């Protein structure tokens, strides 16, 4: 079985007592609300996961007064015995998760099986079928009664060897769980203290159990789960107290849908639409991507995408041509093998390795591109998350006190870091002599020894922090960080910076990038629509594949 039930609970009868109480209260509150006779469909639910159909919690032994004298039940229903000798089993057969927004859906298929459960209930019924209710009857229509006494007899019903097997489909959405039961097979042996009624009751019960599993249980579980998830009371569908005509208008859009719609986009779309309700010839202007500032028409989308700043702009021309050639070859060889998830390479936002190796990138450009992409994708109101974590790496010996898990945690942290730092210190890390396209620095390479970076740092108040790191820098860099006031080292550092990242002028792409300033036009991504000219820039046809 996939799910594990709490065996302990089943073995010692505490669970049974709880179920007894709950069932009793459930049956009695139900019978008092609805004046139906002997509707036992809610009493016979051996499956333990759905044994509590009502959410009422107070368990009280019912008194024998009855509010409505039409009912055949003369006292409340008492549950005498409940037992699950075999622990029920739930097995997962299948699981499916759909992550497509906005509604993520979890589908599961389970097999529930329960064997050998017993249930015994007891009540008192009125067996004088000729009993008349004379309370409200006027005297002149009443015949002369010889005997109009009620004859109440107790009845005990025992269900043994209850076997339930069902295959259920479980759907889990944002705010609810719905379970549907298929292939239900329910068997039980029924024993009634009044033998005349035994076969009748058994037949009726088995018929109504079908209804329970098909209809009643799924509804109840769904409502209960909605209550759990939303915390609001939701009126059940079968209650007759609801007025049929609700004055609230039906919501067609769900809240999750509304989050997907961006207000600015809606505004732009409405601008485009209203712009077409005109006889002006303004829209035939040929030198602009779009005549309306900030609005892009669908037919020009491919141009927009190809001009969009992404990290692929750091490709130099040679590699780009080669890429194009390779792509054409690929298309010729495999004409129809493109899966939807595979994006064309110019739309994947990655910095080309060649640009990284040859230092043709520009840090500021990269950060700007990433910022633009972030703003574009996140919408208007979500701030970047910047977690601040207070770290205190001093070696502090705390007493391991189990009531303070934090301090124990501290000790483990410091122990671990001590271990790692000792390991690190014993293995010297030589600096690799191969640096990419950078003139080798003899100063750096001569240092055979390596030191932990910032091994000791004087802070402003004079106290010394011992900090360890996981990787190390050559001594020169450590010195640079230590001596902040040393003017001679400043010149060394500037030399170092110059040699490590030689000032290369970014390629011609930066000229294009400068056009992407924040003018009024494409403010949201930084494209300047006035700088764009028809036919002068290379226009690629829209991708047809």
């Amino acid at each position, binding site marked *: 079985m996939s799910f594990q039930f709490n065996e302990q609970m089943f073995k010692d009868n505490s669970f049974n007592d709880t179920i007894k109480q709950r069932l009793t209260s459930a049956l009695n509150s139900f019978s008092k609300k609805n004046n139906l006779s002997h509707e036992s469909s809610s009493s016979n639910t051996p499956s333990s996961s759905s044994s509590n159909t009502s959410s009422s919690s107070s368990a009280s032994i019912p008194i024998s007064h009855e509010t409505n004298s039409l009912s055949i039940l003369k006292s409340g229903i008492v549950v005498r015995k409940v037992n699950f000798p075999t622990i029920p089993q739930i*097995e997962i057969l299948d699981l499916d998760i759909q992550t497509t927004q906005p509604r993520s859906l979890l589908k599961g298929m389970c097999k529930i099986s329960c064997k050998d459960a017993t249930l015994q209930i007891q009540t008192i019924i009125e067996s004088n079928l000729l009993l008349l209710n004379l309370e409200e009857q006027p005297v002149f229509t009443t015949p002369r009664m010889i005997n109009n006494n009620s004859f109440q007899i107790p009845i005990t019903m025992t269900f043994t060897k209850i076997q339930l097997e069902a295959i259920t489909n479980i759907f889990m959405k944002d705010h609810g769980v719905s379970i549907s039961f298929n292939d239900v097979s329910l068997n039980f042996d029924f024993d009634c203290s009044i033998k005349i009624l035994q076969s009748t009751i058994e037949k009726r019960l088995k018929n109504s159990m079908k209804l329970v599993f098909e209809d009643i249980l799924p509804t109840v579980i769904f409502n209960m789960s909605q209550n759990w998830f939303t915390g609001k009371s939701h009126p059940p569908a079968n209650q007759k107290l609801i007025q049929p005509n609700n004055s609230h208008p039906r919501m067609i859009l769900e809240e999750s849908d509304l989050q997907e719609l961006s207000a600015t986009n809606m505004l732009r779309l409405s601008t485009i639409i209203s712009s077409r309700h005109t006889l002006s010839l303004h829209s035939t202007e040929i030198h602009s991507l779009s005549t309306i500032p900030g609005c892009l028409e669908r037919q020009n989308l491919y141009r927009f995408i190809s001009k969009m700043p992404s990290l692929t702009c750091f490709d130099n021309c040679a590699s780009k041509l080669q890429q194009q050639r390779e792509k054409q070859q690929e298309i010729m060889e495999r004409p129809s093998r493109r899966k939807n998830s595979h994006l064309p390479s110019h739309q994947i936002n*990655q910095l*080309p390795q060649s640009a990284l190796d040859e230092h043709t990138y520009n840090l500021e450009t990269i950060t700007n591109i*990433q910022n633009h992409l972030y703003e574009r994708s996140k919408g208007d109101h979500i701030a970047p*998350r910047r977690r601040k974590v*207070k770290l205190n790496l*001093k070696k502090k010996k705390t007493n391991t006190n189990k009531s303070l898990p934090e301090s124990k945690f501290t000790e483990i942290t410091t122990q671990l870091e001590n271990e790692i730092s000792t390991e690190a210190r014993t293995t010297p890390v030589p600096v690799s002599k191969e640096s990419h396209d950078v003139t080798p620095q003899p100063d750096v390479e001569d240092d055979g020894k390596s030191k932990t970076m910032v091994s000791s740092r004087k802070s402003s108040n004079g106290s010394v922090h011992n900090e360890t790191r996981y990787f190390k820098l050559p001594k020169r860099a450590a010195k640079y960080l230590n001596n902040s006031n040393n003017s001679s080292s400043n010149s060394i550092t500037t030399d170092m910076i110059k040699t490590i990242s030689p000032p290369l002028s970014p390629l011609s792409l930066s000229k294009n990038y400068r056009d992407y300033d924040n003018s009024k036009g494409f403010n949201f991504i930084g494209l300047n629509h006035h700088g764009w000219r028809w036919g002068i820039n290379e226009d690629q046809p829209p991708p047809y594949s």
Partner: protein
Amino acid sequence: MSFNINWSEIGSDASISEAVKDHLSSYLQNVSLPSFVNNLKITDFSFGAIAPTIILKEITDPLPDFYESVNEGLVEGDEGWTIPSPSDTQFLIEVEYKGDLFVTMSGELVLNYPSQEFIKLPIKLAVTNIGFHSLCLVAYLAKQIFVSILCDVSDPILDEQNSEPLLDPNGTFMAPKKPFERISIIRSMNIDTEIGQQYQGEGSTLKNVGKLEQFLLEKFKDLLRKEIAWPSWINLDLSGDNNEEESIGGEEEEGTGDEIQSDGGSDETSIS
């Protein structure tokens, strides 16, 4: 300038793996989990034999964004206003890892109704084949360290794994789904799941549910993207006083993303 990391020293030493495993496990036990998750722990952890490649690309001054964030809410001249000082530094690091680190975690989903731990569902996750290749920024200023992952670097090996999803049924489905997905960080990761537990040899357990793995991967990628990818960053504050209570924290390691509650904004948090 690249670093040679003596990874085999860490990998072959079982006691370090054990220590990390215990450290992470105890962290998971102490962090506050949702009520329907129980008993989350790391069952196995190994560093693997392949080391990450760390190459230092540039040492420069920190970006102005960091100064702006430190000086947020302050006016020039206030106490705490930070001006760029020559000892502030920033490293641009290229990090690449295509190794065989693996972690296995186990946990339980519980239903606490009608009584405590009424139904339990055991779940095991095994994470392998982690691959990433990105540019990171590490900046130091005003006694704080800022760590952020800036962008991905194109890597033919990692991208090759994702380009043939038809031929490779065990493919990791990690290719970016939306055009201009800003950053992926994790370029490859395999998660094997096992749901359910056998009872006396009977019963079935679900293994390797593809959809579940995709779901978890997406959640994890989203989590990383939200937490540490530029323009977000992690700020380690080293300016702790001697007299303060120690508050140790760190990022959550590979927990299933949907379990972590999110709080808003860029406020200071100390996770305990």
